[in-house]
């Protein structure tokens, strides 16, 4: 009995500790990324994993997160990730960004067609308008295909209410505002 209780306390402490660690890591990475973006002369044309790519903002949903290069677990724990191989924000082609649905992209559940999505990649800002949102299977990689016009694809897990790995993906497609 005593052992079980101690086991549960230990498990609880470890789990909460891990959660706190992830939260601190995310906050710290966001702060560091924001500082980097504000630094004069910073170039966001780099492609190394973990590099700061820019800042993603959806004003209506109060989303504001630093975007890092890469889409692995480490990057997604720190912020939104720019899928390597996809176009850079503002450029021709399909810019693909992914983030956790239970942290940075949680507000995406309230996205609407016509919403404005801004990406700040010094020295320029790109403004996209949401044109669609849909739920797809994880293997529907068509959404990653390059596009003729500049487009932005935001990917997160679905359903939003899930805790842990969710079975589907929520995909928002936006096009560059003229």
């Amino acid at each position, binding site marked *: *009995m005593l052992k*079980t*209780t101690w086991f*549960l*306390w230990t*498990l*609880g*402490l*470890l*789990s*909460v500790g*891990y*959660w706190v660690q*992830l*939260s601190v890591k995310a906050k710290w990475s966001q702060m560091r990324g924001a500082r980097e973006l504000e630094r004069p002369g910073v170039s966001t*044309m*780099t*492609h190394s*994993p973990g590099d700061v790519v820019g800042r993603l903002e959806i004003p209506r949903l109060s989303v504001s997160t630093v975007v890092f290069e*890469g*889409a692995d*677990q480490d990057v*997604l*724990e720190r912020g939104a*990730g720019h*899928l*390597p*191989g*996809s*176009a*850079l924000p503002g*450029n*021709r*082609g399909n810019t*693909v960004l*992914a983030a*956790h*649905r*239970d*942290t940075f*992209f949680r507000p995406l559940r309230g996205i609407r067609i016509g919403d404005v999505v801004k990406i700040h990649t010094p020295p320029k800002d790109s403004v996209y308008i949401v044109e669609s949102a849909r739920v*797809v299977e*994880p*293997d*529907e*990689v068509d959404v*990653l*295909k*390059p*596009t*003729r016009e500049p487009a932005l694809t935001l*990917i997160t*897990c679905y359903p939003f209410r*899930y*805790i*842990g*790995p*969710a079975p589907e*993906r929520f*995909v928002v497609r936006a096009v560059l505002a003229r």
Partner: protein
Amino acid sequence: MKRFSSLKNGLPIAALALLGCAILNPLLKADEYNRKTVITINQPLEVPGVVLAPGTYVMRLFNSSSDRHIVQFMTEDQKQQLALTFAVAADRVRPTGRTVLTMYEGARGEPPAIRTWFYPGDVVGQEFLYPHKQAVRISERTNQNVPEVETGQAASAKEAAAAVVPAAEPAKSNESPGESVFIAKAEPAPPPAPAPIAAPEPQQPAAEQQSPAANNAQAPAEPPAATAADDTLPKTAGKGPLAALIGGLSFILAFCLRKMKGSRLL
């Protein structure tokens, strides 16, 4: 080298094309039906599904009367097929008397990738379709749209390839299934370092090579292989909430057990 210099001096536009080393010199040994064209390259050239090492190759239309947009890349002796690729029709206003190849220009030491092929006298040529992974990579580094082969096409190409490859020369490698078919003798997708360009014969690369603007390659480092090319979308489930839930439940259970023990229920 001498030839390179003279070309540069004579045709300013060539600078761009030469950068991409598109210095392919198709020697025409034309079979009108299959559009057979001999090309000589002295630096790697990316074609759908494979990177060709410097050397001489034969490109020709696959022997199909129903589809005139399947292109074979063969060894010089035509005994081995290196790639079997799909293309779509590409138009030009005026035909020329020479073979014209255009490229997606390479960047940072990466080889150029073939884009279109016009046979002498034709106004309709071939625009090559690339496997998804390769298309994304080329598109990223050149900032241009690279048309992709569709899964259905890839499947039929595989069948065709199986039928065509001579028994003596078995297929060496295949990329991820369902993308495109290639039988690689040379190195597969990861591009090798570039080499100087050989100048072949009667080709006039400048005239119809891509414009410098269109070829404007962005400076990217090599995109990691396991990203957009994966078969699944990124995993975007955070571990934090799950950890917090487990932690919370553990605390509640531990607290309940303690209470129950205190009240001697257990």
